């Protein structure tokens, strides 16, 4: 049933795409409520965050669970540059991306020889280190009071103020980033990442320099996270460290896991689903994180690669023992 639907969509790709694009573009015009538009902006923002985490987790076999650290760096770079140095949004976007990617390299260097759980522990530690330093470095970051009064985005000298305009800005950034990611993933670099994910030893034997490509992976993933963080600072106008706790890392992580790792569509779908659930059950917002936990476990039980994850990859394998057993049984019954 599902496969049929997917095949149908695949066969009629163009009309579906046009309808989808028109819907997305016209969304803020169709929807009269400013509240819903705000949700849409947040959802698209999280799509970008989740996509950047997916580059690290879904494509290179790393398992980073400290994405809030990168978000924090991107956000604070943008916030501080905007309030203290008075730079404009479009100049800060690449700067905060580059600063964040430098930190990505910084995280990678000690983890070069690590994999699996060790790497996850380090990324978790990194996120907490960043948060604690930002919280306590009062002279630069204003400590627990946060960065206030971040100016609005200017485009050709015009100040963007309404939510609709912000929606188009983040949509533009998302589409641009996705295009860049697509190009990267279909180049030598992307194929190298995927080969590392599938089997590092085999990749190494085929001439993939593990350290180099893993480093590039962290740098690129962190770059897009920094871009998203920059928009986040300009959209919220106010940032403080409580926005970057471990819960925030897990929030983005659950989007990637539920939506699907290893495909570009996956995290987008995941961010959409998770945000939809969060907003629909807003009256039960205390149970939100509980629900994320349950969703994560359910995904692992039913479909470990996520709703739209890469089904032909190592991410999709689960309960191998059972599969081997049933294969053996089938063989026996044949004999």
């Amino acid at each position, binding site marked *: 049933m599902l496969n049929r639907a997917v095949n149908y969509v695949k066969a009629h790709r163009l009309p579906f795409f046009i309808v989808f694009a028109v819907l997305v573009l016209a969304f803020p015009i169709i929807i009269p409520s400013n509240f819903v538009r705000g949700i849409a902006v947040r959802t698209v923002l999280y799509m970008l965050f989740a996509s950047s985490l997916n580059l690290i987790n879904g494509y290179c076999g790393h*398992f980073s*669970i400290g994405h809030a650290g990168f978000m924090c760096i991107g956000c604070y770079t943008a916030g501080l540059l905007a309030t203290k140095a008075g730079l404009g949004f479009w100049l800060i976007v690449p700067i905060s991306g580059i600063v964040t990617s430098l930190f990505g390299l910084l995280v990678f*260097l*000690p*983890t070069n*020889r*690590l994999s*699996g*759980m*060790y790497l*996850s*522990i*380090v990324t*978790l*530690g*990194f996120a*907490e*280190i960043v948060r*604690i*330093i930002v*919280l*306590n470095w009062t002279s630069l970051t204003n400590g627990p009071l946060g960065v206030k009064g971040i100016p609005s985005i200017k485009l050709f000298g015009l100040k963007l103020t309404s939510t609709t305009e912000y929606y188009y800005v983040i949509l533009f950034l998302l589409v641009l980033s996705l295009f860049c990611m697509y190009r990267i993933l279909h180049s030598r670099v992307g194929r190298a990442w995927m080969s590392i994910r599938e089997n590092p030893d085999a990749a190494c034997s085929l001439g993939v320099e593990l350290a180099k490509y893993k480093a590039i992976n962290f740098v690129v993933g962190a770059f897009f996270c920094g871009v998203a963080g920059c928009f986040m600072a300009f959209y919220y106008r106010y940032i403080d460290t409580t926005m970057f706790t*471990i819960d925030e890392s*897990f929030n983005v*992580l*659950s989007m990637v*896991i539920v939506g699907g790792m290893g495909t570009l569509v996956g995290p987008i779908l995941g961010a959409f689903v998770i945000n939809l659930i969060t907003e629909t059950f807003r009256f039960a917002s*205390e*149970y939100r*994180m*509980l629900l*994320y*936990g*349950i*969703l*994560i*476990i359910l995904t*692992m*039980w039913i479909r*470990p690669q996520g709703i739209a994850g890469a089904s032909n990859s*190592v*991410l999709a*394998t*689960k*309960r*191998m*023992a059972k599969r081997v057993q049933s294969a053996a049984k089938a063989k026996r019954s044949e004999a």
Partner: protein
Amino acid sequence: MYFVEQLINGLSQGAIYALMAIGFTLIAGEVGLVSFTYGDTVMLGAFSAYWACSLFAENFLLTVLFTILVSSLMSIVLHAVCMAQFLDAPKHISMICTIGFGIILKNAVQLIAGYEVKAMPELLGRSYFELGGIRIGYVKLYIVAIVIVLCAILSFLLNRTKTGVRLRAVSQDRKAASLIGIDVQRTTRLGNLIGCMIGGLAGLLYAIYYGSILPTMGGAISMKAMSASVLGGLCNIPVAAFAGLLLGIFENFSIALFPQGYRDLISFLFLILVLVFKPHGFEFRFKKHSRKEAEHA
């Protein structure tokens, strides 16, 4: 004088960290399971101690029993949900599951107990004695004594009984272990149970030592347990315990050097430095099997 005082504080604090590190090493190294729920296990232990205090009118023994009961129940659920299914699957699946379980645990406790800091009653009294002008609370001595007793029991269990041999066999090679008739599921469940029990007891001691507990404290705790056990290469219980002790002492001296807010930073930096310079931990002559073998399992 100040130095000695801090050293004593550090030792008793470090004893708790050592206990946490032992529990984590047992789960991650000896049994070879991946657990990101450990910090929340300790947190649950602290909270069940807090609840038991109000239930049983601050009876220490009943509190301990209740804590053990709660953490072992939790560990059985954890094993059934996150580990039993995925023993042969790629490790990241079980890892993600335990992350999800940790989120559930943390938020469930938060919903039940509320978001604010809870004050733990002083179970072991507040009396102290003076030695050369330094006040030493009996609590600290009790804590160190409890930790030593637990370590002795555990070391007997792991090295001198069949259960210990089974645990190590499963961690080294699951397939070979099941070939010679070891029930892998049961053994991993037992290993996880012992590890979580120790974690719960560490949580109880933590609550008594600090006097205040929070549902969100699991993250920092798991960091401390992990950094101590990574120093032992995740497989070496004595080294992990020693590292926990060192960590406690480091932390207490760091308060003199850095502002209070940076205290939790020490364990993170400790961890990252260890991973940079000594990623396979220190393996002294206690060495039983290297990390590579454990990873291979």
